[in-house]
């Protein structure tokens, strides 16, 4: 197992447990993140606020590692985000009330680590899948 896999497993485990101090410690303080619908986020505090928003919306939220390709300090991780939206979810169009809907969202993360912490962090997923699962876009 590579060092980034150990780091990602720790990060996901801490996120799943709702331990945001532990999760944030997996990132460099000046980490640069990007995610669909959000855009660029600078710094670990910005990532943490976003992660906490999702955990508030889905208290059972889990990040699940499916596969990882490690190449030096770079890695690509396939994962699935699962959770049930039983809390309010902040969105660009205002706060969404709890829907009780289940989310099962495939995603990929592209990371670079520096000194054993995540220094860049780009997330890719399909917002159509997420919005459809939340009941905000008509099913195909």
């Amino acid at each position, binding site marked *: 197992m590579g060092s980034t896999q150990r780091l990602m497993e720790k990060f996901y485990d801490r996120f799943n447990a709702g331990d945001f101090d532990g999760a944030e410690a997996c990132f460099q303080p000046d980490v640069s993140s990007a995610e*669909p*619908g959000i855009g660029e986020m600078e710094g670990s505090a910005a990532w943490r606020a976003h992660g906490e928003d999702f955990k508030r919306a889905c208290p059972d939220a889990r990040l699940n590692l499916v*596969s990882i*390709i*490690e*190449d030096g300090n*770079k*890695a*690509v991780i*396939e994962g699935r985000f699962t959770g049930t939206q039983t809390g309010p979810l902040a969105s660009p*169009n205002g706060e*969404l*009330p709890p829907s009780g809907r289940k989310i099962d969202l*495939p*995603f*990929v993360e*592209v990371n670079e680590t520096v000194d054993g912490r995540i220094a860049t962090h*780009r997330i*890719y*997923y*399909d*917002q*159509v*899948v997420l*919005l459809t699962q939340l*009941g*905000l*876009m*008509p099913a*195909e």
Partner: protein
Amino acid sequence: MGKARDLAERAMDIFHQGDLDELEDVIAWDAEFTMPGVALKGPAQLRQLLEGYRTAFPDMHHTPTNTVESGGRFAWELELVGTHTGPMVTPAGEIAPTGRKVVWQSVDVIDTADGKITSWHVYFDQVTVMAQLGVLPQPASA
């Protein structure tokens, strides 16, 4: 440069040049291909999908911006640029040509074995593409 990367680059060259018969040389007969809204198996089904993209975006071009490789596995981040001058078939129906130039990013995660691609997972955000085409579905009323 490893063999998995060579295969990914060859598949991309085949797409750009349009010699889609050659897909069989690089895609295993039972290869699994997924992208948002799509799950396919084997080179013939993949060929149909790629022909659809070449019809919708005849000038479509991929530029790798980052690559990782380990063993028989390879992934790249890509910037895709295309002008929507042909009908585009989507899981939600056909979109008439808009003439718009669209730019989006994707990640391909590719597994290889015995000199062929056995699995190819594409991750991108359809909302980013649909917004640029001006065809974003209206949100359902909450």
